[in-house]
């Protein structure tokens, strides 16, 4: 009954309670977003790296994937050595390059082109057609839309641009064998993939790749396999998804610091809001509380009721803040992902249920503690004095 009494006390001043709940909801939403931001990009990057089952990356020594123009030479031999390592399930080579397509006005448009092994690749997922053979390409959806391409159509590509005229030089027509979703492309990026040998020939980077993606056999720890490959293949760096995420984490320290500071501010604001509302309520009901103590209601039960007010405020605030936070995260994600060069499949805000649960639990606990302080203060007042103060 004391708990019911506390809840009804909150409803006694509806406008005040609603305003407080709105404030707590906004703070909870901010904390939720900062929790999602603190590790969102890294988590999302990890998911992307593991896409298609390729969790390891083998790069030229000392470089991160596609971090420089450097390539792994003698790629065929390196590939064979990697494939020979125990625990390797599949090796997917990729050579990144730039080819040029002719626009309607004849000028050349640079397109990111990936040389891949159609039997083992992790760059795209086909949505139409089939894997490319000799003289064929898979176009990204934005490229297909921009050039009105369908499976079976042709696209002229050139390895070079005439700098004086701005026109592609040495064009050749390639048949579109498929259209796909390119996992690492930024929004609306026009890109394509074709057999590795063709890209090597066009760019005169024979027997060279930018990166190998490696898939491990089921049950084998990625880090163990990374060590094995590094030991077996000299001159390369091997990254497990975890180590790539750690590298990403280092680069995103700024985001984590920002998220920690803003999240802490949100938490403090919530605690202050709850504490203020409960303190005002307790002050207003000082006489009632003293009378309840006089008629014999135990102090701990009264305290429990007051703490419950804080808990309810924080809990309901969190419940309201959750959808608000998710909506805000969605909007902010779209703004942040508009920065050029970021893969569209990345996300700055990733909903991680255990972390979100901990963040919201911290808010609720802060709410309870905030109720505890004014409650304990009111109940610590000697009863005789409380009744005298009330009578005056």
């Amino acid at each position, binding site marked *: 009954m004391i708990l019911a009494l506390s809840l009804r006390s909150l409803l006694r001043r509806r406008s005040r309670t609603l305003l407080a709940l709105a404030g707590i909801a906004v703070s909870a939403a901010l904390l939720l977003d900062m929790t999602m931001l603190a590790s969102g990009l890294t988590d999302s990057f990890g998911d992307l790296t593991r896409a298609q089952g390729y969790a390891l990356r083998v790069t030229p020594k000392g470089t991160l994937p596609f971090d420089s123009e450097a390539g792994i030479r003698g790629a065929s031999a390196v590939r064979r050595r990697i494939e020979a390592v125990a625990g390797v399930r599949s090796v997917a080579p990729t050579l990144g390059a730039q080819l040029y397509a002719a626009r309607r006005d004849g000028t050349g448009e640079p397109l990111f082109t990936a040389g891949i092994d159609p039997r083992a690749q992790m760059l795209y997922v086909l949505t139409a057609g089939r894997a490319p053979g000799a003289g064929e390409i898979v176009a990204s959806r934005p490229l297909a839309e921009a050039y009105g391409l369908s499976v079976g159509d042709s696209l002229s590509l050139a390895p070079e641009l005439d700098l004086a005229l701005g026109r592609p030089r040495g064009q050749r027509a390639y048949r579109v064998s498929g259209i796909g979703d390119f996992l690492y492309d930024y929004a609306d990026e026009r890109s394509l993939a074709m057999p590795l040998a063709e890209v090597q020939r066009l760019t005169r980077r024979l027997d060279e790749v930018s990166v190998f993606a490696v898939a491990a056999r089921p049950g084998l720890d990625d880090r163990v396999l990374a060590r094995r490959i590094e030991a077996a293949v000299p001159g390369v760096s091997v990254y497990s998804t975890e180590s790539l995420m750690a590298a990403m984490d280092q680069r995103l320290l700024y985001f984590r610091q920002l998220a920690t500071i803003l999240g802490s501010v949100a938490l403090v604001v919530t605690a202050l809001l709850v504490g203020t509302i409960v303190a005002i309520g307790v002050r207003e009901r000082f006489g009632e509380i003293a009378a309840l103590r006089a*008629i014999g209601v135990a102090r701990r039960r009264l305290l429990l009721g007051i703490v419950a007010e804080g808990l309810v405020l924080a809990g309901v605030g969190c419940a309201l803040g959750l959808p608000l936070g998710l909506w805000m995260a969605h909007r902010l994600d779209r703004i942040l992902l508009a920065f050029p060069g970021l893969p569209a499949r990345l996300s700055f805000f990733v909903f991680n249920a255990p972390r979100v649960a901990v963040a919201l639990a911290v808010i609720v606990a802060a709410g309870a503690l905030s109720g505890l302080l004014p409650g304990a203060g009111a109940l610590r007042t000697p009863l005789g004095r409380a009744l005298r103060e009330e009578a005056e």
Partner: protein
Amino acid sequence: MTDDRPPAAEPVIDARALTKEYPYAGDAVHALRGVDLRVDRGEWVAIVGPSGCGKSTLLNLLAGIDEPTGGEVRLVGTLLRSLHEGQRARLRLLSVGFVFQRFHLLPVLSAAENVELPMAEAGVERGERRRRARELLEYVGLGHRLRHRPPQLSGGEQQRVAIARALANRPALIFADEPTGELDRRTGEEVLDLFARLNAEGTTLVTVTHDARVAERAERAGRVVEMADGRIVNSEC
């Protein structure tokens, strides 16, 4: 800490040599200067005196709300000094009823819920406490106001709800601190009629008042204890 005497002879309140001092500006204010008071079962005792004479302080000590600087109080046979605060609260809950000048009803609860509250705290089962709350509110003439909340009731009605609440756990006695202080003459008389009825039916009453009408009614039914300057100066039977 029960008394050794048989229950029939046991006073409801037995206070001896009570003193109470409050620290004030580095000195001590002597609110009570050695008070002895015995209240027997079924009595109506009115404690009267001018403002600041120590009436409310005495009531607080008798009810275990405050602790005396010296002396001791036995309330329904229990030496209050031997109890910690939680035990004193429990004793008040089960053995004492309170009626305050400002009623102190909970505005968010209905009249019936206000009466149920001490019973809920005492662990009385819901059905039983609802039945008894209705019975008590009918007893004080508010059977038609069960679902009304205090702000929807007049001052006299609120004080009657407070009296019903005081009776909830069938207390051995009721303390009333200026029970008519906030009421007009007519509603004050109604409340006093109710007190008289309760006392006639065997409820022990201790009222603190400076209202002559309360003293007069108590004098008719029991006795008046007159205080001045922290002492009992007259205790009429």
